[in-house]
C-alpha cells in the first residue's frame, strides 16, 4: 500500500509510478466519464462521490447504476457487482503468491487497490514471485507506486466528472481513451505466438457471448481461451517429450 513508509520511501515505488504514468491520461478519461455517467443516471452528487471514493471499481459501478435507478433489491445489486468483478477473483489467485507472507489486513488492502492495469503491469514486471525479503520489498513498493497513480488518476477524473457533469457531454466519447490505454498494454504483451493465440481466442469468445448478462462474457472468454491454450500446450509438450513429475 502506498501509505506505508516502507513502500513509498523505497526506490521501486518510483519505478511503479513511472511504469503507469504513460497510461494515466487514459485512466483519468475513463474515470471522468464514469463520474459523468453516475450523475447522469440520476445518482445524487453525494452518492456518486461516496461510491467513487469507496467502491473504486468502474465496471461494477456502471453496471449497478440502472439497478439503483429502479430501486432493485440490494441482493440483486450486490450479486450483479460481484459477477461483473469476477475477473478480479482470478487476478487474486495470481497475486496470492506475492502476498502470502503478509498479514491479512495488508493482503486485503493491497488487493483492494490492485485494479486491472496495476495487476497486468505488476505481473509483467515480476513474472515470478521473489523468494527473499529484499525482493519482496521491491515487489510491494512497485505495486504500491503503480496502484497509487492508478488510484489518483481514476479518483481525480471521477470527482471532476461528478462536479462538471453538465459541461461534459457523454457523446464526445472521451472515455474511449481508457480502452486505448488497455490496448497499449496489450500491444506490449503480444510478444509470443501463444499470447497472440490466447488474445485471439479471448476476443472471439467475448464478442460472441457479449449478449450474456452481468458481463459474464468476460469470465467465459478468459476461461475458454486459457483452457484451449493450456490444452494445446499440453498436447505439444506430450508430442515432444514425456513431462516429468508435476503433470495434472
Amino acid at each position, binding site marked *: 500500500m502506498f501509505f506505508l513508509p516502507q513502500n513509498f520511501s523505497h526506490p521501486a515505488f518510483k519505478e511503479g509510478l513511472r511504469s503507469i504514468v504513460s497510461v494515466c*491520461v487514459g485512466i483519468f478519461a475513463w474515470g471522468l466519464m464514469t463520474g459523468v455517467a453516475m450523475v447522469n443516471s440520476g445518482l445524487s*452528487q453525494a452518492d456518486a462521490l461516496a461510491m467513487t471514493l*469507496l467502491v473504486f471499481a468502474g465496471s*461494477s459501478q456502471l453496471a449497478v447504476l440502472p439497478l439503483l435507478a429502479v430501486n432493485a433489491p440490494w441482493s440483486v445489486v450486490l450479486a450483479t457487482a460481484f459477477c461483473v468483478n469476477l475477473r478480479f477473483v482470478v487476478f487474486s489467485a495470481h497475486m496470492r503468491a506475492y502476498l502470502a507472507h503478509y498479514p491479512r489486513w495488508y493482503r486485503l488492502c493491497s488487493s483492494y487497490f490492485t485494479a486491472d492495469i496495476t495487476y497486468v503491469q505488476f505481473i509483467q514486471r515480476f513474472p515470478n514471485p521473489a523468494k527473499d525479503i529484499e525482493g519482496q520489498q521491491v515487489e510491494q513498493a512497485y505495486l504500491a507506486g503503480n496502484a497509487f497513480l492508478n488510484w489518483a488518476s481514476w479518483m481525480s477524473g471521477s470527482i471532476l466528472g461528478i462536479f462538471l457533469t453538465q459541461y461534459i457531454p457523454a457523446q464526445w466519447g472521451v472515455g474511449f481513451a481508457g480502452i486505448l490505454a488497455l490496448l497499449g498494454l496489450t500491444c506490449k*504483451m503480444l510478444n509470443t505466438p501463444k499470447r497472440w493465440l490466447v488474445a485471439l481466442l479471448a476476443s472471439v469468445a467475448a464478442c460472441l457471448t457479449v449478449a450474456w448478462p452481468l458481463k459474464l462474457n468476460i469470465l467465459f*472468454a478468459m476461461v475458454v481461451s486459457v483452457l484451449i491454450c493450456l490444452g494445446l500446450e499440453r498436447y505439444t509438450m506430450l508430442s515432444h517429450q514425456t513431462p516429468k513429475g508435476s503433470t495434472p
Partner: protein
Amino acid sequence: MLDFHLEHPWIILGLSVITVLSRGFFVISDRHFELPYWLERSLEYAPIAALLAVIAPEVLTLHGELIHHWLDARWMACLAGVLYYALLRQRGPSLLGVIVVGMLVYLPVHIWAGG
C-alpha cells in the same frame, strides 16, 4: 453546494465490501494452500485473456451485437494505435502514443460518423 445526504448509504457500503471480496478473494484465507498445477499454468495467460475479453466487445460490438457497419470510429482508432505501436516497436513506443494516436483518429470519426 454539495448536499451530504446519502440516498443509498448501505448499498454503497455493500458494494465496497464486494470490491474487497472480489479483488481479495484468494488472499482472504490464512491457510497455506497450493494451487493445482494446471491452474498455476493457466494464470500465465490470465492477464492477456482478461485484457482482450474487456477490450474486444467494447470495440467490435454495439448494443449486444457484432458491428455490421464498417464506418465505426472504434476499430479504426484501435487499428491506428496498434499500427503506431508496431511501426515504432524497435524504438520502444510509449503507451501514451497509442492513446494519443488512437484518440486523434477516434474523435473526428466518432463526432462525424458515430460509433
